């Protein structure tokens, strides 16, 4: 078992900023664990611009924003980076067990920063009835398939939910030559940024149905159509308004859930409704020395806010380590 001053779990924008900030605040022994094959997290698949307006005062794409931090962190020898490292167990005393090709390792840091981001809410969590054919994707998965793998998931798309990822993907599919038949949003107005409504939806003439919900997914082996209806204030179907939209793909963009199963395993208090850590002060949790930053602390709209939040976590962790000596 190895002992370290600081371990950061997650090499996306949150983990990168937190590790760099902790170093700038005096921590000289840092291990960063990233489960994927490269740093950058979700930014790698966000090839659109809109990142860094606040932090760098520039308009950058996701990979460009991530690269600024990746260049910086790779120039810091005190920060050891372990890729393809997947944490499988976390204990209350901060002992972590992680797997990587070729080995299983344990490490116990003085302080721990969790920067594990979010997962997407699935179709099942919002209880859309019907069949379970091929062609149903979370918006993030579709984004990865298109932007990183060069694959086209479908040709006639209906997007459920007007969150930012859904809006971005509406434009993305259109640019790839697919037809986005509709965005169906149960609330009366968009859940995403107005900037995305304009640049992704209005600019591309994509039909949006507010106050509508998807009643059923149809299709035996592949999606064939969805049934949609208008809803009242209580989100119940208004009889007589149902209609079908033929399509071969359904994108689900109905929200993000912070990935906090590891700290929950360690006995850290979690808010059952949001899956975020119960916290009296930003980045702190119910266990002293365990910090959470970025989207796994709170779902932010802008990555610039993630960076700010994570830099604070790095500072707090450095302070905690100093005080423990």
């Amino acid at each position, binding site marked *: 078992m190895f002992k370290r001053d600081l371990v950061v779990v997650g090499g996306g924008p949150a983990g990168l900023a937190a590790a760099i900030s902790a170093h700038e605040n005096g921590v000289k022994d840092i291990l960063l664990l990233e489960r994927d094959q490269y740093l950058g997290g979700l930014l790698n698949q966000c090839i659109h611009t809109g990142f860094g307006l606040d932090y760098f005062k520039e308009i950058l794409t996701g990979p460009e924003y991530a690269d600024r931090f990746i260049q910086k962190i790779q120039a810091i020898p005190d920060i050891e980076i372990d890729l393809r490292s997947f944490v499988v167990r976390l204990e209350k005393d901060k002992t972590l067990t992680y*797997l990587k*090709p070729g080995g299983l390792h344990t490490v116990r840091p003085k302080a721990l920063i969790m920067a594990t981001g979010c*997962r997407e809410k*699935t179709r099942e969590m919002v209880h859309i009835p019907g*069949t379970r*054919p*091929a062609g149903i994707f979370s918006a993030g998965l579709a984004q990865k398939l298109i932007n990183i*793998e060069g694959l086209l998931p479908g040709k006639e798309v209906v997007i459920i939910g007007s969150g930012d990822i859904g809006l971005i993907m509406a434009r993305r599919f259109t640019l790839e030559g697919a037809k986005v038949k509709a965005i169906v949003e149960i609330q009366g107005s968009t859940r995403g940024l107005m900037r995305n409504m304009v640049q992704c939806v209005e600019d591309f003439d994509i039909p949006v149905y507010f106050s509508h919900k998807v009643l059923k997914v149809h299709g035996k*082996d592949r999606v064939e159509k969805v049934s949609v209806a208008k809803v009242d204030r209580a989100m119940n179907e208004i009889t007589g308004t149902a209609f079908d939209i033929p399509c071969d793909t359904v994108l689900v963009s109905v929200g993000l859930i912070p990935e906090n199963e590891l700290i929950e395993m360690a006995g850290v208090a979690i808010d059952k409704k949001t899956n975020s850590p119960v916290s009296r002060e930003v980045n702190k949790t119910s266990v002293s020395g365990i910090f959470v930053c970025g989207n796994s602390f709170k779902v932010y709209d802008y990555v610039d806010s993630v960076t700010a939040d994570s830099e604070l976590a790095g500072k707090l962790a450095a302070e905690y380590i100093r005080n423990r000596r």
Partner: protein
Amino acid sequence: MHDVAIIGGGVVGTSIARELSRYRLRVALFEKEAELAFGVSKSNSGIIHPGTQHPPALLKSRLCVQGNRLTKKLAKELGIDFKEVGELVVAFSDEEAKRLKELLRDGRSLGVPGLKIVNRAWLKKNEPNLSGNAVAALYAPTAGIISPYRWVYDFAENAAQNGVEMRIGTKVEKIRSTGSVFEITTSKGVFSATFVINAAGLYADDVARMVGIDDFKITPRRGEEFLLDKKRGHITNHLLFPLPSKISKGILVTRTSDGNPMIGPTSEDVADKEDLSTTAEGLKVVLEGARKLIPSIHENDIIAYFAGLRPVTGEDFIIRHEDKAPGFINVAGIQSPGLTAAPAIALMVVDILKKNSLELKKKAVFHTHRKKEYHLFAIPLEKTKRLIKKDAEYGDIVCRCEMVSAKEVRDAIARGATTMDGIKFRTRAQAGRCHGSFCTTRLVKILAEETKTPITGVTKRGSGSELVKKDRLT
């Protein structure tokens, strides 16, 4: 030329195949879907019943009790995780409590072991989250849980290991009797066999009609099931049942052998043998029924749902040799407790074959045990450490929600998975809380690589269910 042709690759067909593989026979199994278990069996709730749910005079009740005993033994031989968790049939009134006594008497007459009626105090201690409205329950200790599709794959692997030909993706279209053999026309060629065993699930009536037997009809009866997050895995200690009605067990609160609590099923006759849709109404009915047993169950705990179709024909199993079509054996209408009864059904079918002059000579070498695969989620971390030292790819995690490594995925493909659902059923990759959002990309690539197909050819469950429409790079 085969001695026996089995039509249907679900739990019934594959358990018969495994049993027949003991003997010196040429046996072939035909399954029309892209993989085994893709019909009725994949939607099974995975319960190994003690035998308390049906009238004792029925054939299925007898086969259930026998199958329950056989399952425990077979689970060890075939290397599957089988947990004996026990069941409680719960009474909510004095009248229902009286009915429990009848169930107890019936169960004992069938030879169901360990039955006893337990009271409020026992329930409070041993099933603390059970509704306070419960007055008593019938406790049956021999109820267990198993993974229904892994059970099918384990039977099939062992049967194949012992020489059974598995013809998957092969649909039987016509059967003609020449007098001494059956000529079986399939989508992949013509075969012949002396005996045919019809274990075709929802389509057993269609297959029977191919040889002129049309005295039964299969009506699909749909059941919707809802899975809760594993985090809620400890809400029950036993499988919870209400009192059974004439047509169904009622809404149960059980759990899968992988640790997810499960609520359901509904019970609704449908017209289409392929209608596997879930409904908003079904969710309501199931939540209401489940909350009657465990009031703290919440809609937000639900992470997945699916529907299955029971192949219903009358009240009992139809397992018989057809004198009108000598050599043809029907194994039809196998709804609950079919999974439990499967090993006993296999023995009964072998007996029918013997009585109809099939010579059964035991093989000199029969492999009783199957080489188990590893599931990282089911072994302690110390064992995982040793595995990774032996093969580094066990440390390459592909599915984070269920902790599945690339090695397990390749192993599943080597054992027969050719689709994304096949990988899901064998390894649990894509079955966790993110439903494949994280792992799909890698799985698609591994599957394409291992099966030497282009990525656009990777399917969810066979032709027609391709995942992506176009690969920009080709």
